[in-house]
């Protein structure tokens, strides 16, 4: 039996205790303002075939004038076969 991919795992949220949340603090992520998203957000980019993953990240960084950006795993061609 092969292991199950994380996105197909069945898990259950179990309750230990209940409590109301304070409305005057925090904010549900779907309501984050644009400025907050630029600092605490993720863009699901469709990487085109030309540039490397690093180049795409550098380009997004420049476009949005960011100090820091990173990606979740290289999708490289150059990395393994130079051209």
């Amino acid at each position, binding site marked *: 039996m092969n292991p199950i991919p994380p996105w197909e795992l069945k898990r259950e*949220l179990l309750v230990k205790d209940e409590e109301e949340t304070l409305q005057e603090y925090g904010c549900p*992520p779907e309501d984050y303002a644009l400025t907050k998203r630029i600092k605490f957000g*993720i863009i699901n980019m469709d*990487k085109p075939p030309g540039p490397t993953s690093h180049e795409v990240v550098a380009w997004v960084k420049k476009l949005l004038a960011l100090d820091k950006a990173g990606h979740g795993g290289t999708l490289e061609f150059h990395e393994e076969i130079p051209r």
Partner: protein
Amino acid sequence: MTGVLPIALEEATKVVQALLLTGKEYVCIMRTHREQPEESIREALNLFEGVIWQRPPLRSSVARNLRKRTIYRSEYIEGNGKDFLFKTACEAGTYIRKLCYDIGEVLGCGAHMRELRRIRSGPFTEERLFTMLELVNAIDLWKVNQDESDLKRAIQPMETALGYVPKIYIRDSAVDALCHGAVLTVPGILRLDSDIERGTTVAVMTQKGEAVTISRTLLSCKEILAAEHGLAAKTLRVLMPRGTYPKNW
């Protein structure tokens, strides 16, 4: 190589490690160096399901030590005798180029990867993908017309990346202490996922669904439910800025 490339902005770079725990999915075209029947390819793909050993390719960004990776599933789609299209779901750090090469070795004919597209990285799929052009347009719309609607849609909250990471939801009163680096204790916990063991990497969340920390559990789900006090999870990374919630300690 194209497809799903989640780019974390600024503080969101801290969630990338956790995102990587939740797997990837690719579609790949492999070319065999001699004609092969469909059945052989299906068999070879099955052979490489489960835990496999891989040595990273010569030109790669990591040390070339033999390492263990899990291929959850590979699915044959179609082929014409030499080019074969398949889908594979695997753990982060699995080299599909290497998988193609190794399949070629098993078949005895040699094979290489022709094309690769990532169709999933954890919760990110092709559903809400933005192209570079769409992003430029969204930024223009915002800068020129002060219309932020498209850019807001392009930039998803970092919490999205934690979609398949096991979670612990805590009391508002426990939040700020964690932001200052404190260890999460049992009384602070309200709800938690059933698959949490000791040593599981979890996302600690507010009741509103905001990420507070990435932590490693010191107790299992069962132990947490049964306990009244004690240390529950050690903070690995603080995600939320201090002072977002009131200081209660």
